[in-house]
């Protein structure tokens, strides 16, 4: 382990004040010995840099999928007080409200015939990859609706059923959304991309529930062994990326205006109550709503495909839950001995509210919220539940995925997309992508083991394992 960091538990590590100059609070991260072997010094430095930001409370945190990002580390969580704290696009990322949703079906694994046809059908229905254009023809007013209302806009346009809305974190809508803070450029990018999957690590995957670890929670979540589920992973597309870019420049200037001293320009930030800070928050919230509407539309296409191919009634396919893993939100948490309202930044981290927490649908009040952890291509995904331990230690947060360990350059040198596709086919997993290049980039082995990351959050108690889902067929963006 790096010099200056101390181990304080089997899976907990402390980065003391003074690790880098100017730290206001200590840092804390969670890793097993196996995961610690791949820890990058740059990621720990970024965690420490976050601890220097004005108004940070508690600790600068990172989940077991910590890795080297820009601004905050990926896997980073930090909360800021409302009176002295700041908001930073570097604590959210370019892909605002990148997130995951899980759709359950009544179909069992042995009933999933015509898997190849299904994936081709979905590949046609959901525009994918670089330059993939939406089949929706949005008007300016519709875009405004997406930005203001998120999931419920999509449902009211016919892309879902009412029960979908409460099955999203924050009911799929941040009410602080301010479309006026979303630039024309962002709108131009957002208009043709609504209802598209995008590229990179985004995917739509047909999965089978292979193992249940928590029968009671699984029953509440509506999942059972052998069940076919569909996972959708994507975000706010070019609209969110442009909002981040636009406001990064504004906040870079604001950082100087408010005399905030930062060790990294990507941490550009402004006080939460400043005009610049409020504008970014409003634009970010609008982008988050766009992303929820986007995933809702993609889920609608998926349900239609399942209805057409297998005759499953639309309403018998339920949204288990939808989680955001790149977002900043106002939430109430206990800091020290007092309960206070804070702005929680989660960058590559998932909210994991425990039993009895606010904002949970009544079905999940006693289990805690469903937490969905997507696996990388070819590896399992996990369904977990939030815990009160997470409320006490990580502002109600847990991991978001596996975290890369191999660079894209190394991945491409090691194995071609075609080879990856063929080896997955031997395991019975179909991969459909616009190009083989996209497949090589995200091949199994370039990520940490999602199972190990999930094991650590389970052992630490930041969330508890409910079910494991194995991939059967995947569309890669």
């Amino acid at each position, binding site marked *: 382990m790096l010099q200056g960091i101390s181990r304080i538990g089997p899976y907990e590590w402390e980065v003391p004040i003074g690790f880098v100059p100017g730290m206001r609070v200590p840092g804390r991260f969670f890793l097993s010995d196996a995961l610690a072997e791949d820890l990058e010094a740059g990621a720990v430095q970024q965690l420490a840099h976050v601890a220097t930001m004005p108004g940070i409370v508690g600790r600068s945190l990172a989940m077991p999928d910590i*890795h080297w*990002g*820009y601004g905050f580390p990926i896997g980073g969580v930090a909360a800021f007080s409302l009176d002295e704290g700041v908001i930073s696009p570097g604590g959210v990322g370019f892909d605002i409200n990148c997130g995951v949703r899980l759709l359950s079906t009544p179909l069992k694994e042995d009933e999933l015939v015509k898997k190849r046809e299904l994936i081709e059908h979905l590949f046609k229905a959901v525009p994918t990859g*670089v330059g993939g254009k939406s089949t929706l023809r949005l008007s300016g007013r519709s875009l405004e609706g997406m930005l203001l209302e998120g999931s419920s806009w999509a449902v009211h346009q016919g892309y879902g059923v009412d029960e979908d809305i409460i099955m999203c974190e924050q009911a799929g809508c941040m009410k602080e959304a301010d479309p006026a803070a979303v630039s024309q450029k962002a709108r*131009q990018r957002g208009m043709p991309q609504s209802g598209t999957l995008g590229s990179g690590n985004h995917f739509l995957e047909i999965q089978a529930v292979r193992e249940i670890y928590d029968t009671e929670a699984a029953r509440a979540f509506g999942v059972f062994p052998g069940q076919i589920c569909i996972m959708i992973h994507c975000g706010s597309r070019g609209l969110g990326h442009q909002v981040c*870019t636009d406001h990064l420049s504004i906040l870079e200037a604001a950082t100087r205006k408010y005399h905030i001293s930062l060790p990294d320009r990507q941490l550009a930030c402004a006080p939460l109550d400043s005009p610049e800070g409020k504008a970014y928050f409003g634009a970010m919230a609008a982008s988050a709503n766009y992303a929820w509407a986007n995933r809702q539309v993609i889920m609608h296409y998926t349900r239609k495909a399942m209805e057409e191919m297998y005759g499953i009634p639309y309403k018998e396919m339920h949204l288990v839950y939808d989680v955001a893993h790149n977002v900043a939100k106002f939430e109430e948490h206990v800091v020290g001995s007092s309960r206070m309202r804070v702005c929680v930044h989660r960058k590559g981290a998932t909210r994991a509210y425990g039993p009895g927490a606010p904002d949970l649908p009544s079905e999940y009040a006693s289990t805690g919220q469903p937490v969905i952890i997507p696996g990388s291509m070819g590896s399992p995904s996990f369904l977990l539940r939030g815990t009160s331990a997470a409320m006490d230690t990580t502002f109600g947060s847990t991991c978001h995925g596996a975290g890369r360990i191999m*660079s*894209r350059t190394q991945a491409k040198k090691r194995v071609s997309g075609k080879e990856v596709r063929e080896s997955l086919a031997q395991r019975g997993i179909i991969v459909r992508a616009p190009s083989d*290049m996209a497949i090589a980039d995200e091949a199994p082995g370039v990520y940490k083991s999602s199972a190990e990351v999930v094991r650590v959050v389970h052992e630490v108690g930041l969330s508890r394992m409910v079910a494991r889902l194995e991939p059967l067929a995947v569309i890669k963006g």
Partner: protein
Amino acid sequence: MSIEELEHTADVRMRVRAPTLEELFSEAGRALMMVMYGSPGEGKRTMNVSVSGHDLESLMHAFLSELLFLSEVEGMVFSDAEVILRNYTIEGTVKGESFNPDVHSAGQGVKGISFSGLSIVHEQGSYILDVIFDV
């Protein structure tokens, strides 16, 4: 002039070298296109570009962000740029061709240009840019 990809775990990190600053901006645009589409385009279409910053790094950030925006919205794959740099403002034309999924699908979407790890230095008669693209 040269473009090389450096190691980076999560994103794409590029090093670009050019003898003049104007050429550095043009080469940086080509580097972005290589990531997004597998290779830069050919110079059949032209477009005007004008962006400002308050230092070289912020100007580069603004220029590459503008190319990313134009590329996505106008469906343009850029080949090179002829620009004039004055008082941290870039003005000029960029050349390229229209996006064609049959030839431009060997890349990956770029979400944004990171300020982290963005540096421009002048060394032995050559300008060197390091930049991280979030993919």
